[in-house]
């Protein structure tokens, strides 16, 4: 009975992956269709034209640069804020902690459009004009919460006695932070930075309301989709998907190699233990 069940599950898994990837493949395929409208059907012949158009699209390149700059700024601001928040929340207890935690995670649950609008209105009150700097601040307000949650999870496995020992041995406060706590948090900080970067690139709702007249990639794609579109967008999409696939494959190869090394080391350990027993 488990056998039929497993076959059904495998079929479902396959169908689900097909469901996830087929739309991306269709979108990528349309980049090569010599048709003014982006579609794979009807197929009017193979062309590289849309990639050439994309390379010459100045607005797209400006948007691309803006997206990267905003994402880097978000990482630089959100990671320290999220880390400080995690350390703070980790060292207090009781009612204050619950309230503070609630305020910190609330922006994750808030609709992006509302974050964008409230950021725009607030800075407008203090006479700061809209623009990408407001997009950065708006994005930080919720992305910092993701960093906080990641760092907080990592802090659970931290042994505070290490800091005590360092202090007893005469380390300064700065050294305790730099040499004891931060090295332990490094994986969480790296993950937080990556998540902040990708969340920022993905962001549309906050950016749309705060951007002023500047464009980011998502806003540019959106305006293209609404105002008559050419397959240059498909060419862009295909390039982004291929970059993602290359990164994923590279990661997967590295992971498999590490797993193999790990397995070999374990086998070695077992052999050594067996030899000792004899």
């Amino acid at each position, binding site marked *: 009975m488990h056998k039929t069940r497993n076959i059904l599950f495998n079929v479902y898994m396959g169908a*689900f992956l097909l469901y996830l990837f087929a739309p991306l493949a269709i979108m990528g395929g349309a980049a090569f269709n010599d048709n003014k409208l982006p579609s794979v*059907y009807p197929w009017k012949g193979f062309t590289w034209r849309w990639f050439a158009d994309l390379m010459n699209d100045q607005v797209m390149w400006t948007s691309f640069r803006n997206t990267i700059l905003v994402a880097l700024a978000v990482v630089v601001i959100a990671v320290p804020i999220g880390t400080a928040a995690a350390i*703070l929340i980790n060292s207090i207890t009781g009612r204050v902690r619950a309230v503070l935690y609630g305020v910190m995670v609330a922006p994750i*649950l808030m609709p992006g459009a509302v974050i964008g609008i409230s950021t725009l*209105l607030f800075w407008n009150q203090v006479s700061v004009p809209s623009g990408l700097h407001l997009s950065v601040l708006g994005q930080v307000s919720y992305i910092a919460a993701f960093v906080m949650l990641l760092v907080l999870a990592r802090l659970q496995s931290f042994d505070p006695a290490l800091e005590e020992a360092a202090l007893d041995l005469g380390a300064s406060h700065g050294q305790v932070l730099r040499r004891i706590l931060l090295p332990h948090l490094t994986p969480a900080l790296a993950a937080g930075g990556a998540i902040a970067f990708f969340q920022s690139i993905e962001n549309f709702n906050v950016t749309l309301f705060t951007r002023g007249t500047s464009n980011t990639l998502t806003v540019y794609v959106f305006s293209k989709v609404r105002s008559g579109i050419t397959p240059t*967008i498909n060419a862009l*999409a295909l390039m982004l998907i291929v970059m*993602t696939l290359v990164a994923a494959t590279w990661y*997967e190869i590295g992971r498999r190699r590490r797993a193999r090394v790990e397995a070999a080391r374990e086998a070695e350990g077992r052999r050594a233990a067996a030899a000792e027993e004899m």
Partner: protein
Amino acid sequence: MQDMLRRYGSSLTGAFVALVAFWLLVLVILPNLTLFEQSFRPYLPVVDVGGPKDTYSFNNYAKFLNNPVVWNLFGFEVTVPVHLKTFLSTVFFSGVVTFITFLLSYPLAYYLAKVVEPRSLPTLILLLFIPLWVSEALRAFAWYIILTFNGPLNAVLVGIGLLDKPVRWQNGVLTAYDAIVIGLVYTYVLFMLFPIYGSVQSLDRNQIEASEDLGAKWWQTHWRVILPHAKPGIASGCVMVFMLSAGSLLVPSVLPSTSSNWFTQTIQQWMLESQDWNTGAAYSFLYILLCTVVVALVMWLFKVKLSDIAK
């Protein structure tokens, strides 16, 4: 707090507190207070701001109840304000999206957590993550291509004889929101899958085996053992998907039908087309209320804490 001072000294602790205060006060609390305050003020030309006409009122909120339209609800014709209709449609179809993503995700989450060979698990998870790295705008756009009148879906369905003639999918077959629901399910299904997977994974396999040994049917095991254990993950997934769907602006704008309207689009029209930021603020505040109610409802329904949901 005492503990922090002892470990990191007054200047570092001060820096931590300052960073957190900047975040919570300047980036979160003050903007929301401004939103609240502005929502009660009229939209005026710059010269009149602060003048005698600039008084607090509920006028912006009252606009929510203007412009009644006839709405055909399951055969009954009711007259409701147009923005209330949009609001209710958004809530209803976001609920539909949440339900569909749950149905799609639960078997898969169970498969990943308990059935699949542990060796192939990391590869599968990586494969599932890839679509998440592709921008939401592009994922919605992919369905725009698929569902267009001269698109591949119609070509395939007519080709294999399931349809006699092409269908205008974007205008809706069942409701005006078909294409939007399809797009939202595709875009957000993984936000349901991963939390449920996380919570099913933490269930001890022995409990499932014990239930089977004691003669439970497979659906009894799921209903009585696995589902209750997965509750926090399900709650988390439901809140995430509902919020993301209701708050989405991209998908409803890329995959609209002639008569579909999402509440975020209404807000966007006030903000960017009418340039009436005050009414936009009032509508945004209504949206925050909706979110609070939904989160509270789910927490009460599933008996979970906020820290279980936001992970």
